[in-house]
């Protein structure tokens, strides 16, 4: 058991830190949940990609550096410590790309991944539906076979980034007669500007269009945009969701940097004793999340399937993120009400954490039933 990085990893850390120090924008970009901010963040993705920093753990042929999972963790620590902007390509990079790397065809990877790495094509997630949130097996949007592809109809909602994104990925019911609800689903990629697609932005709590509803009316999806075998969508989506995604949805580097900023804020405010314990817990929580992730990454690299363990992760970081931002707003005093700060933006963002990616109630059920072995019951 050790926490030592290899010389190669340390050299990579140094190189990444130096590049970021020279390139991270001097002042924060506008919120990426606005048209202006989206464009600015897209340009930042292109700048990262120009020197292969946007997707460091990917294969080199798609724009990566093949650093592996540990290299990715190292990069993320440097990235957030440098105060670099949030990643507009996150949905595609952390959810779709691992799925394509595991289950896509070579043609799909070569076509989809490079423009994802540069920010030229930004992806939105299209999993949830009005009647299917955490219970994804009750999806109703349909995919019907047609010449050379599928005709897709239905409604998706809470699609993160869809207000400004280019393309989306999601699950569709292709076999309504399948014996079980999670069977007969097909994993598709589609163009948000294709005929038959209507995108209606939804304002989140602060009014910014962080997500959107998608109305799909006989949208044509060619066969080449089906991921894996038709009808196997659930298995494909879940295999990736439970493993690497559990580690890569939120990197420890992000919280280490945020906790460090919180400590600085506390000191700037005169180190009020009233916030002492909460600031200390924010520091400890970031360290805990880092070490837990290192342990999970170590097991993953030894070949273990993380599966339900990613539910421990998700509940922890989502609640941690809110507590950290609440502490910051409280420390700011009267200024804590102002919506024009990075802390306020981060606070609004954090509030969604326990709700999306499978609500924390569902994650706790998974922990209780699959990790502790408690009996299933009515929800």
């Amino acid at each position, binding site marked *: 058991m050790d926490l030592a990085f290899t010389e190669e990893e340390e050299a990579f850390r140094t190189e990444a830190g130096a590049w970021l120090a020279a390139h991270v924008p001097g002042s924060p970009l506008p919120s990426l949940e606005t048209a202006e901010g989206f464009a600015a963040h897209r340009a930042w993705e292109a700048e990262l990609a120009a020197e292969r920093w946007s997707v460091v753990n990917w294969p080199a042929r798609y724009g990566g550096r093949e650093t592996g999972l540990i290299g990715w963790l190292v990069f993320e620590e440097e990235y957030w410590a440098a105060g670099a902007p949030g990643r507009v390509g996150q949905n595609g990079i952390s959810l779709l790309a691992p799925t394509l790397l595991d289950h896509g065809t070579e043609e799909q990877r070569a076509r989809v991944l490079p423009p994802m790495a540069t920010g030229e094509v930004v992806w939105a997630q299209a999993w949830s539906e009005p009647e299917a949130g955490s219970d994804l097996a009750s999806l109703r949007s349909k995919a019907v076979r047609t010449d050379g592809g599928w005709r897709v109809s239905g409604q998706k909602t809470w699609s993160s980034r869809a207000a400004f994104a280019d393309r989306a990925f999601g699950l569709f019911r292709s076999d309504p007669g399948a014996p079980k609800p999670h069977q007969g689903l097909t994993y598709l990629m589609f163009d948000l500007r294709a005929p038959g697609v209507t995108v209606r932005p939804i304002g989140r709590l602060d009014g910014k269009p962080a997500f959107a509803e998608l109305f799909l009316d006989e949208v044509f999806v060619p066969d080449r945009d089906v991921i894996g075998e038709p009808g196997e969508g659930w298995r494909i989506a879940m295999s990736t969701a439970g493993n690497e995604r559990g580690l890569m949805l939120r990197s420890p580097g992000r919280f280490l940097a945020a906790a*460090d900023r919180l400590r600085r804020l506390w000191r700037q405010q005169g180190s009020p004793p009233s916030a002492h314990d909460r600031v200390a817990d924010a520091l400890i929580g970031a360290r805990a999340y880092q070490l837990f992730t290192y342990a999970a990454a170590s097991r993953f690299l030894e070949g273990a399937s993380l599966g339900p363990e990613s539910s421990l992760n998700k509940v922890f970081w989502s609640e941690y993120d809110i507590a950290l931002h609440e502490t910051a707003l409280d420390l700011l005093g009267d200024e804590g009400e102002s919506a024009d700060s990075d802390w306020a933006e981060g606070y609004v963002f954090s509030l969604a954490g326990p709700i999306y990616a499978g609500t924390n109630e569902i994650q706790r059920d998974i922990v209780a039933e699959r990790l502790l072995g408690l009996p299933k019951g009515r929800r």
Partner: protein
Amino acid sequence: MRFVLDAGQRAFADSLDAMLTAAGTPSVVREWSRGEHGSGRALWSRIAEAGVFALTVPEEYGGLGAGPVELVVAFVELGRHAVPGPLVETVAATALLLGLDDPGPAERLLPTLTSGESTATLVPQQATFAPSRRPARSPTASRAWDVPPVAAPAESPGTSSTRTSHRPAESTHRTPLLEGQTLPAGARAPGPYALDADMADVRLTTPEPLTAPPGTTDLYLAPAVRAAEVHRSLDPARRLFRLPPGGELLASGPQVAGAAAHALATGRLATAAQALGVGLALLDRTVVHVGQRSQFGVPVGSFQAVKHRLADAKIALEFARAVLFGAALTMAAADVAAAKVTACEAAYTTARTALQLHGAIGYTAEYDLSLWLTKARALRTAWGGPRECRALVLSGGDRRW
């Protein structure tokens, strides 16, 4: 970077677990609580045979030369089985003796501690002062091992307005306590108790107040105490004593301060590990209970309200495990303090959940669950409580967390 236990470490945990399961610790704990040490002494010998007290002792002293990771592995198991006795204190005493420049005391005392023939207790020195409103009990200056004295408030009775440092010049931990917080000059943190001093063969004490001139701290072998002097703990198996002053001088000078800091980190880490083990045992037992206990025609464990409390306990314990082993690898004071807070809070949260989900059965001394429930609360305070450890985390220098 490979942050998982290796096969040898896992096998060590499994063998300790098997031995302690066979030993039937609950009856040992109950006898210990009554001051009857026979069965506990016998168990102690078996724990020693398993190598627990030799783990961090160098081979030249008959030890195994292992490290803090193995120590944590062992103490998680000791906590899981609620083993009573001055376990933490004995390994901390060992660390103290090994930290001295003078090898004499170690050569004299370590062999029997390592073999399990003797046991030790000691009064852990505070790494930081807990903010205290206690009146000054001594006119002399107070001092902690790795924290310089802080400026005293002018309004404190009997103080000068500022105090200069009495810490040894070579001290490497110079972070102040809580910014903006002060301790009245002459006050000292409430002295901790010495665990099981009536049965411990070796009773180490660094008599406070730890006064100027710097670096003249003394280490004493304290006189015996009588069983009748016991102070009751919330955990009946933790028998607390005040060590009497005096005794035999073992060592003096700056070496004692450094060794005591080493002992503090070791004791705190082992306590955190023990607390994690306590939490894991409470969770395991509660999961079994709610799977068997039926109400309204279904197992209690099928209710979502029950599941979610247990899921939260599981989450807290698993994250504490990560912090704990991280601390074992770095042994940095702030990491160890973080491990103490995280493991003890997780164990205590789990204890509250365990009690709630057992209902009135859990609220009895007869039921074995009580052996872990009471310990979860007591360990939270032992070897530096949450506030003190959080202060150390906050002052942890320029590291990124």
